[in-house]
């Protein structure tokens, strides 16, 4: 590991000091997020001994022709509450050297890669979530001929400031039929086929179970597009992979994904379906949560963006789930009766995620297969149901609004691994308005209400935000848990923010209380504890 670091560093320096220096381009970005913490037992904000936290990174990339190299320095002094404390500290978290031309692309060092939808391999960096499962090793991409490309990866995954125990190896091939077959490039129907294989090796050192050292997974995919019609499907299979996540059962894993849709100007309809069974795939069989994920299981429900709609967000259940999602978007034309002068946009989406239809095999003392699955059956146990209807309307060049209604059923016991809450039903109404006072003066205001008889009861939310001139902005928001069944928990969580934006620089400063909650990006989530204090955020790139 240290050797690789040294080699990469040396190569980096030699690239920088190579001849055609003036042609070189250096790019970078910096992000700093800091927060102070005040103990507040009422909202559940813990006493943080160091009183503040700071997450930051600086990325530096140097490109000179076909060669590029980069490093990322990260500092967590200490990591913000809600991020894993194992991030505490600082150092070079990512470094790479890459050579790429039109046929070959080689990377040595840390890299991010995805095969297909990521069902068996996706290494990515999500700073906001604190997820970085980059692979430290070697990646090779090669375009064999027009229409056929392959890539191979090998290495260890990042595990906070160290690396995971397993060696991840993977190959992926893709065939673009329209590019490969003569004269097919003019055909309107575009077909792409792909296949991949990934294997993880970890010393089989478990003392209780006879675990496999090599765990292999394979996936195949097809994508067909024709004008407004699109179809994508992928299937993945993983051999037995007993781990902490699946309670050391020997059942193979499977995942199936289907996405299809039709669209034309002013109308689109898409349907997705999926089934995931025992598909947690990590490069260490003892890892939990978001640690050392080799693959990514895309979930179906929409990413909610409004504050109260984020109280009950869905997270993919890697041990098993099946679901469908359908979305219809329609624009009522401009100058029509309902469309008004500027048109009205309608968006309706329904998603339903249920448990797999399983039968317990009661074999934990024998074969340890755990359970069997009827993939064509439907388990009545709801994990998540969501119906969202959104209406967007512009009244005049000065005023536009978005109305949203959400009806949701959320299996808190399963999704948050709690006991005794069962399924929380809630209804949410949202009004989001923008009123332009002058060219660079717009008042943005939101009113939201969440109604539920369960859990923490009803919530209300109000927000006003305004930009002044072309660079400054300020906002005020209040999230009020007025329906909490416990009287002293009927708390106002207010925040005041202000900031400055210019070109690539954005700085914002805030003060207020944040409720405890869950932040999700793409079905991957992390807990955010309640907090009370100042926050500062800065991003800049150059």
């Amino acid at each position: 590991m240290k050797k690789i670091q040294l080699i990469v560093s040396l190569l980096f320096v030699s690239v920088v000091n190579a001849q055609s220096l003036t042609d070189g381009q250096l790019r970078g970005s910096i992000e700093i997020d800091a927060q102070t913490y005040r103990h507040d037992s009422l909202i559940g904000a813990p006493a943080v001994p160091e009183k503040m936290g700071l997450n930051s990174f600086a990325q530096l990339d140097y490109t000179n022709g076909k060669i590029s190299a980069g490093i990322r320095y990260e500092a967590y002094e200490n990591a913000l509450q809600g991020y894993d404390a194992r991030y505490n500290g600082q150092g070079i978290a990512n470094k790479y050297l890459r050579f790429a031309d039109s046929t070959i692309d080689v990377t040595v060092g840390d890299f991010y890669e995805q095969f297909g939808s990521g069902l068996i391999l996706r290494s990515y960096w999500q700073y906001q979530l604190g997820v970085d499962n980059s692979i430290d090793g070697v990646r090779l991409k090669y375009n064999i001929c027009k229409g056929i490309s392959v890539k191979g990866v090998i290495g260890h995954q990042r595990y906070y400031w160290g690396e995971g125990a397993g060696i991840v190896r993977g190959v992926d091939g893709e065939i673009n039929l329209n590019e490969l077959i003569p004269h097919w490039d003019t055909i309107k129907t575009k077909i792409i086929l792909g296949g991949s294989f990934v294997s993880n090796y970890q010393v089989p050192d478990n003392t209780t179970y006879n675990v496999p050292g090599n765990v292999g997974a394979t996936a195949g995919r097809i994508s067909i597009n024709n004008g407004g019609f699109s179809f994508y499907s992928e299937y993945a299979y993983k051999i037995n992979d007993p781990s902490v996540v699946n309670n050391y059962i020997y059942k193979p894993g499977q995942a199936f994904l289907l996405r299809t849709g039709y669209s034309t100007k002013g109308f689109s309809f898409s349907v997705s379906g999926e089934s995931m069974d025992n598909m947690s795939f990590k490069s260490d069989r003892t890892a939990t949560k978001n640690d050392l994920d080799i693959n990514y299981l895309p979930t179906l429900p929409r990413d909610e963006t409004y504050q109260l709609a984020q109280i009950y967000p869905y997270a993919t259940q890697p041990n098993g789930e099946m679901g469908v999602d359908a979305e219809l978007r329609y624009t009522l034309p401009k100058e029509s009766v309902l469309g008004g002068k500027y048109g009205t946009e309608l968006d309706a989406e329904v998603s339903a995620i249920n448990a797999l239809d399983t039968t317990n095999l009661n074999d934990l003392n024998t074969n340890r297969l755990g359970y069997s699955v009827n993939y064509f059956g439907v388990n009545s146990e709801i994990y998540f149901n969501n119906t969202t209807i959104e209406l967007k309307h512009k009244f005049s060049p000065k005023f536009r609004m978005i109305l949203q209604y959400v009806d949701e059923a959320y299996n808190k016991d399963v999704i948050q691994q709690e006991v005794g809450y069962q399924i929380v039903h809630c209804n949410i109404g949202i009004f989001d308005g923008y009123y332009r006072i002058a060219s660079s003066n717009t008042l943005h205001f939101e009113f939201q209400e969440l109604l539920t008889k369960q859990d923490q009861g009803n919530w209300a939310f109000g927000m006003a935000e305004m930009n002044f001139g072309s660079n400054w902005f300020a906002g005020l928001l209040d999230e009020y848990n007025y329906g909490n069944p416990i009287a002293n928990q009927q708390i106002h969580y207010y925040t005041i923010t202000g900031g400055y934006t210019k070109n690539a620089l954005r700085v914002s400063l805030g003060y207020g209380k944040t409720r405890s909650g869950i932040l999700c990006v793409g079905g991957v989530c992390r807990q955010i504890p309640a907090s009370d204090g100042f926050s500062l955020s800065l991003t800049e790139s150059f």
Partner: protein
Amino acid sequence: MKKIIFLLFLLASVNVFAQGMKNSKVPTVQVKTMDGSAFSTSKFSNNGKPIIIDFWATWCKPCIAELDAISDNYAQWQKETGVKIITISVDDARTMAKVAPFFKEKGWLYESYLDPNQDFQHAMQVMTCPYVFIIDGNGQIVWMHTSYMEGDEDKLYDALKKVAKK
């Protein structure tokens, strides 16, 4: 500590010779077309006229507001400056399949690509979206802006006019 010194040394040594993103060429990486084919960013071109590159996502409300606002004026902008707008969706595997239907339904006339593995985002140092770049007729990045508030499209237009005049 040693690492910090090493980093500072690198920064100092590199900075002497190299320049930042501004006035540099668009980095060459592979993105995907809406039907999933690989496409090199080195092929982005507009016959010597400016290009706007806009990073967005189907789940990003300010991004959509910005692209809508630009769309209302796109014909006029094209007439006056010859600009071409290229959108890069940062949607990942979860929402990627929704990008093409979303785009078509909107009736946007922009050239559009996907960046599911974040290669182009990382190369362009894009951490959050929306993020907009103006590329001049020589293929150099001359202006960039992060986030969107109502009225920012006017700033973009002003910057674009200056670039087109050069």
